[in-house]
């Protein structure tokens, strides 16, 4: 069973609709006491990094999510939800993140090295490049286009957390992760077949986990 973390910052509806289409069982909750019963968690998110972190702290979800990830349980951060997994962001002045993955979130420059301007946000369909084609989350998929909407992107020197990237005037971390903690910068629930298949793969990770729990 997947638990979707409700902290008032996400489009819970489209994520949950996508899970329904895939036949993946889920529930939505905000209390750690309820979320802990899940086999895997989804951290959605649209909006400001700083606001999101202060709500997570207020609802005591931040420490819960950190220890969930530390215990090696499946966690998927989507869009802002992925950015929150990193150390911090320069959005609205610097703000601390969850420190689960190494890297920092910075605004797209809006200007190339050659001095020409480009549009921010990075909005629309862009192609994924698979840095770790054998990663479980990419199982059975072929690289294609997915739907992005974001003005800030992760910068990291740890190449090992880059599972897939995209190109928008710079290398854009698109799928990141360590262990069973996965982040997707784009919206898998809005990315056609490929997006649904990536969500399905996460669902399978969660199901495997659920079966293990059943054995205990």
């Amino acid at each position, binding site marked *: 069973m997947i638990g979707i973390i409700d902290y008032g910052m996400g489009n819970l509806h*489209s994520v949950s609709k*996508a899970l329904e289409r895939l036949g993946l069982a889920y529930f939505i909750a905000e209390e750690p006491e309820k979320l802990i019963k899940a086999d895997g968690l989804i951290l959605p998110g649209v909006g400001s990094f700083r606001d999101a972190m202060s709500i997570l702290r207020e609802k005591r979800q931040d420490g819960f999510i950190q220890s969930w990830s530390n215990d090696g349980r499946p966690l998927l951060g989507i869009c802002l939800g992925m950015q929150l997994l990193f150390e911090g962001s320069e959005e609205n002045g610097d703000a601390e993140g969850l420190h689960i993955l190494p890297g920092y979130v910075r605004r797209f420059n809006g200007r190339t090295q050659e001095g020409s301007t480009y549009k921010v*946000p*990075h*909005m*629309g369909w862009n192609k994924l490049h698979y840095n770790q084609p054998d990663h479980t989350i990419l199982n059975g998929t072929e690289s294609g286009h997915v739907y992005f909407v974001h003005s800030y992107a992760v910068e990291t020197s740890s190449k090992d957390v880059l599972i897939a990237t995209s190109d928008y005037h710079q290398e854009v971390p698109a799928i990141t992760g360590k262990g069973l903690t996965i982040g997707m910068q784009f919206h898998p629930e809005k990315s056609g077949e490929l997006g649904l298949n990536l969500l399905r793969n996460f669902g399978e990770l969660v199901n495997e986990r659920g079966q293990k729990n059943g054995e205990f």
Partner: protein
Amino acid sequence: MVTKRIIPCLDVKEGRVVKGIQFVELRDAGDPVELAAFYDEQGADELVFLDISASHEGRKTMVEVVREVAGTLAIPFTVGGGINTLDDMKGILRAGADKVSLNTAAVVNPSLITEGADYFGTQCMVVAIDAKYDEELGSWRVYTHGGRTPTEWEVTEWAKEATSRGAGEILLTSMDKDGAKDGFDLELTKRVNEVVTVPVIASGGAGAKEHFVDVFEDTGADAALAASIFHYKETSVEEVKAYLRQKGVNVR
């Protein structure tokens, strides 16, 4: 790099899709949920629904349509028409739309753009602009109320104002070209694209697949929107994208 988007637009009245030719003549072209799935399958990158029903009942129907579409569609979609308050936006976005588009309401009350952007983020806020060339002005004038009411705004000035207030995207319709099917208004699109840093969707005038190549090659537009040529199967999204690909335009 990010691909150029092809966006079919569905005008919805009392739950049914219609298309205004030059904003007057209406023809029924089908069921919104079915059409949405059809366009998704054809490779549409996004959809826009414009609610043109004037009644309160019609608008409630639209929220239902949005909910149904959101349950079946795996690509983003925008809803516009009849959105005048933050509550209207909440209703549509919570029913599952990805973006709302403001037209007349944004001109009448520009702070509405900011309210929406503060609440949902600029990525949810599209400002739709209907523009018509004005000899006296020597440029394009912004119209509201479905193209019936001229405003004081020159189009590039309004586009800049709208984005500074939080518009995350501009949906630009040429009233001169709308329904004429002889191509997008390249000059207008280029002018607006030059003054804003957010994506611009060109609209009005698509009559053949070649027109899409022109608008992407000549104006810097990020997306192109069309209705009747897709609804009446004069060409298909698939065909347009294959043609763009052949011409070296980056599409999905």
